[in-house]
């Protein structure tokens, strides 16, 4: 087996099998930051493996076309021994056609990802701009208040500008301590560039709908990022104010009275974590094992590319 076959098999394995591993109960016990890292490393590695294999194929075929040895190349690249015997012209046409199709798919995918990211960026920039004009500045830095009768807090970033928006209803609903905790949560999103991560994953999932890994990552990472932000906020402000605000915003009532009507779907999971009923992260060896796995996943294709080019 040579480098290209290895890379393709590796990319296929990552793209189809990794989601199951990353969504498994083993991964659920990990701190969300580590899980996010696991997802991102896997997505990055799978993409590099696909691109690496394609790159080697294109360079190799160009070389073999020039030296007029298309068939030999095709067979050698895939690591199969001389099993197929085709007339030279037919083989050349076949190789060129296959490579053209593959390269076209890759170029089209890249184009779609870039276009989608550009669209998101523009609409987010317009939103930040509107928010900064409409909103009234608050006592908190970078936080604007917008009048609305629905309580909500969110952050938005576009270009180099970003803003945290608090509706007037949310200002009325939240206690000062609760508001501070929620703002810490939003600042963690902005600091960690969570918008960019989500926008990139969504663009990849839309451009590569047939790869289960991309779909799964776009689905699983956003709730994990919410948990990362929860962790950052509760480290500074404690869990109680954040939990209180989470419930207040989700139910539009102060804790604990009132009917629980409308709220967020991932809210229960986050509430469970914040109340401390979920298992805490005492599994250092497991965390280390996953980190090691991630590192191996990353180095494998690099080694393969090196082997090939040397």
């Amino acid at each position, binding site marked *: 087996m040579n480098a290209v076959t290895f890379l393709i098999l590796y990319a296929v394995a990552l793209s189809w099998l990794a989601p199951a591993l990353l969504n498994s109960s083993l991964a659920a016990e990990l701190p969300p930051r580590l899980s996010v890292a696991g997802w991102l490393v896997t997505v990055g590695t799978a993409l590099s493996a696909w691109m690496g294999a394609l790159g080697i194929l294109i360079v190799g075929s160009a070389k073999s076309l020039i030296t007029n040895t298309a068939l030999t190349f095709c067979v050698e690249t895939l690591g199969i021994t001389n099993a197929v015997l085709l007339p030279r012209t037919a083989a050349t046409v076949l190789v060129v056609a296959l490579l053209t199709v593959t390269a076209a798919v890759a170029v089209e995918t890249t184009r779609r990802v870039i276009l989608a990211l550009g669209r998101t960026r523009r609409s987010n920039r317009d939103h930040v701009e509107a928010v900064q004009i409409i909103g009234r500045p608050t006592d908190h830095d970078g936080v604007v208040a917008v*009048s609305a009768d629905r309580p*909500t807090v969110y952050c938005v970033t576009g270009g180099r500008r970003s803003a945290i928006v608090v509706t007037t209803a949310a200002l009325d609903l939240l206690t000062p301590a609760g508001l501070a905790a929620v703002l810490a949560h939003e600042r963690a999103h902005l600091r960690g560039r969570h918008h960019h991560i989500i926008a990139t994953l969504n663009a990849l999932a839309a451009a590569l709908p047939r790869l289960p890994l991309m779909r799964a990552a776009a689905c699983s990472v956003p709730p994990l990022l919410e948990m990362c932000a929860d962790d950052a906020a509760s480290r500074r402000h404690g869990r109680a104010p954040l939990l209180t605000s989470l419930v207040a915003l989700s139910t539009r009532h102060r804790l604990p009275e009132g009917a629980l009507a409308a*709220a967020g779907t991932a809210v229960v999971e986050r509430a469970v974590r914040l109340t401390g009923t979920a298992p805490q992260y005492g599994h250092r060896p497991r965390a280390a094992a996953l980190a090691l796995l991630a590192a191996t996943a990353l180095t494998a294709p690099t080694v393969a590319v090196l082997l090939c080019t040397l």
Partner: protein
Amino acid sequence: MTIRGFGELEAVVMDVVWARSEPATVRSVHDELIARRQIAYTTVMSTMDNLFRKGWLSRKKVGLAYQYWPVMTREEHSAQLMRTVFESGGDSELILNFFLDQMTDDDSAKLQQVIQRAVEGKSS
């Protein structure tokens, strides 16, 4: 008061225009701002021109100068902005909301249980 960026200047100019009951000229807006901060007439002019291009202000030429007035009130803009936010639902590309989606009754019940347990746990 310092100007921290072009975005802030746009907000300041819109505040002034929104506070007026009459259409505003660049001259009158500049006169009002110069009392509070160091600012060039041309800066105010280009800011208002930008706001016109971006659809925040309407304008009409009266004599030699343009008269500007807001396309919508601040409240109308707020309502429109919030509508897009709430309609986007789970569109987390646009905004990372503290929470937004609708919750099912099942989730509500679970959440209530969790909180109940936490409250009891703390009191015991």
